């Protein structure tokens, strides 16, 4: 029996969405201050107006329910699910006013891409964008990478009562410390420390590369956020290729790798439990998977006409593998090289890397290594059962903060999400093909959107068809929520909209049959 949203539910959900919008308004103060500091007066007026609109909307929604009760699980799912798209709408307002987008949907695409840390961009003439607008793009990556709910919980915006249900509704289950709020604070502090350290190093590298110190520092902050949050936005149109710097690419690779490992494992390392870190199913799957992907990529490139010498293969190939597996979306080759010069094998290898993604509980997208590891263990278990005597009891275990058994429930969860991801990749590819694009590129782009990978092969462009753009927005949104939250709220919305009498009639006909 499906449950409907009552008016009370809607008011409570509205209240909490209002809280998040007010939080976004406060975040817009950062680009506003940057605009004032660099005397970018036009962007400053845009951000002031956007802050005002957000305050009105946020406060208006909060008035729907002045004293909300504790969030139920259903309401928490709805708040989390809607937050990503509602906040993207608000975030798109100053972006659209910047004049760097052909239509509002493009700015919305940018907002969704930033918040979901996909990294695909529809900015026109990014190289002439203001510092304030660029700051806002990377603020979105920071907020989205940490998780909107995580940040809000860490700041105590939802109070103490609604934390647990909201936290788990964002696809997080790891509890690094017993308290949810403390866990979120740990995640936020840890990420900010990493970003700060990387910013200092990258500033030195870029200053030596000849960039003015202030610009070097700005670019370093942006790149550090984007790499650790596996976002993929860059301040310049040519992505990482713009800097022509191997040291920078090397540091970004380390950051992307760090960002694709779960915060739980980072906490284990911090506690000095190195053994537990290397026994973890995800770390082992990561090592095997990266080795396989790199070998396939190298084999594919070595037989192609270009990129086949060792230094080129190492510099371009390895970077692209790490960028795609971590679902960051940085490119140190051009889109033309990716679509036209890379061998088809290398092209598909990158798509598969994006499809799988990084660790569960990290900032990456995709299927996640944990699920891949569990499914591999499940296959092992099935084979063991097939060859074992009837009287034997087969138990397959994996290591994840202690030894655990592979149970049917865990396998079912992994398989369900796997099927949902693959279905979305397929449907997205068909949508691309239906728009007249090349099948390989359509598959690649669909995977890049649903896995929040962000490496694009040319379909995502300012002049793309609006229907395809809207579908890609849906894919990014669904992929970030790992489908279950989104499907749950979609079902609830449909059930709530369809009149009760019609549903009863349909159910009665079903029973009669």
């Amino acid at each position, binding site marked *: 029996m499906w449950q409907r949203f009552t008016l009370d539910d809607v008011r409570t959900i509205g209240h909490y969405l209002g809280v998040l919008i007010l939080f976004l308004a406060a975040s817009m103060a950062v680009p506003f201050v940057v605009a004032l500091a660099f005397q970018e007066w*036009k962007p400053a007026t845009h951000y002031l107006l956007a*802050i005002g609109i957000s*305050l009105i909307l946020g406060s208006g929604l909060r008035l729907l329910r002045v004293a909300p009760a504790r969030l139920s699980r259903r309401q928490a799912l709805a708040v989390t699910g809607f937050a990503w798209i509602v906040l993207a709408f608000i975030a798109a307002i100053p972006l659209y006013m910047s004049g760097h987008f052909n239509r509002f949907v493009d700015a919305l695409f940018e907002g969704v891409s930033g918040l979901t840390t996909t990294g695909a961009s529809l900015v026109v*003439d990014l190289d002439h964008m203001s510092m304030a607008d660029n700051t806002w793009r990377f603020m979105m990556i920071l907020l989205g990478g940490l998780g909107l709910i995580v940040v809000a919980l860490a700041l105590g915006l939802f109070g103490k009562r609604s934390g647990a249900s909201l936290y788990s509704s964002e696809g997080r289950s790891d509890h690094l410390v017993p308290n949810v709020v403390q866990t979120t604070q740990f995640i936020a502090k840890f990420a900010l420390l990493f970003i700060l350290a990387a910013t200092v190093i990258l500033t030195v590298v870029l200053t030596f590369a000849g960039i003015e110190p202030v610009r070097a520092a700005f670019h370093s902050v942006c790149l550090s956020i984007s790499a650790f949050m596996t976002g993929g936005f860059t301040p310049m149109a040519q992505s990482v290729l713009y800097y022509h710097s191997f040291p920078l690419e090397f540091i970004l690779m380390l950051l992307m790798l760090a960002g694709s490992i779960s915060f739980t494992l980072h906490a284990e390392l911090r506690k000095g439990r190195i053994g537990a870190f290397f026994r973890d199913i995800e770390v082992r799957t990561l090592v095997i998977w990266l080795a396989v992907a790199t070998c396939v990529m190298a084999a594919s490139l070595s037989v192609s006409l270009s*990129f086949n010498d060792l230094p080129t293969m190492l510099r*371009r190939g390895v970077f692209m593998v790490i960028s795609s597996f971590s679902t960051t979306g940085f490119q140190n080759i*051009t889109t033309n090289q990716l679509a036209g010069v890379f061998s088809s094998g290398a092209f598909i290898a990158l798509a598969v890397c994006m499809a799988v993604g990084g660790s569960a509980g990290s900032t990456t997208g995709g299927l996640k290594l944990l699920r891949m590891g569990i499914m591999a263990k499940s296959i092992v278990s099935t084979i063991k059962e097939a060859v074992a005597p009837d009287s034997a009891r087969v138990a397959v275990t994996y290591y994840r903060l202690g030894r655990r058994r592979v149970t049917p429930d865990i396998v079912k969860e992994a398989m369900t999400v796997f099927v949902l991801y693959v279905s979305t990749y397929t449907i997205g590819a068909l949508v691309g093909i239906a728009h007249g694009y090349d099948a390989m590129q359509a598959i690649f782009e669909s995977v890049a959107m649903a896995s929040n990978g962000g490496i694009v092969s040319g379909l995502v462009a300012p002049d793309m068809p609006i229907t395809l753009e809207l579908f890609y927005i849906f894919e990014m949104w669904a992929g970030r929520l790992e489908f279950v939250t989104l499907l749950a709220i979609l079902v609830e919305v449909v059930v709530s909209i369809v009149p009760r009498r019609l549903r009863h009639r349909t159910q009665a006909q079903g029973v009669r049959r």
Partner: protein
Amino acid sequence: MSALTGGWKRSAAAPKCDGCVCGNHARGRWLVRSLAAAVAGAMLAIACLVALPSSAWAADDNLVNPQQRPDSSFIYDTEISALNSADTYYDGQTVQVVGEAVGDIINVEIDGSYRWVNLSSEEQGVVYSVAVHMTDNAADRIDTLGGYSTVGTTLQVRGTFHLVCPDHDGVTDIHADVVSVVDPGTQHPDEFSWEGFIPGAIAVAIGFVLMFVFYRLRERQR
């Protein structure tokens, strides 16, 4: 090609003098050819003078590229957008592009006497860019780099295009032979005006009033 290297063709209408070796006809042909060559040369010189801007005149290095392939590989006046979707046909060809220098001048790793400059140009609402590898002397001609509120120096670059550059680990670039300044950069900073902030200030004020109303209502419910 044929006009430059193929020689002259006798006009069909011209009077024929088959087998004639007389001095009058030979002198006449020689005079016509000399006159035509002089006129063609003068026209070519005038065309060059008109086509080249004055700044380019001064800046051209007139370098000789010893690796220049025969004329069939020479692609003149290419668009940056064409290079952004180039296939192997363009690889290794000499191209000439015009674009705005944007972003930063970046030192080339290892070789300190070269720089990377990004050239960008707009076509049908889409902005394309290409990396140019040039000497530091050539990069010094850039007076402004494009960014927010600045239009960078417009450069005309002639050089060899590499789809996958063997010297720079596979990057797509142009190795510049000749760099000329077409237009200097300009700056147009935002002008401050209070009027621009008024709609935002009103919206923020309304937002704060609503927040105040919310907190009053919540206090009353307690």
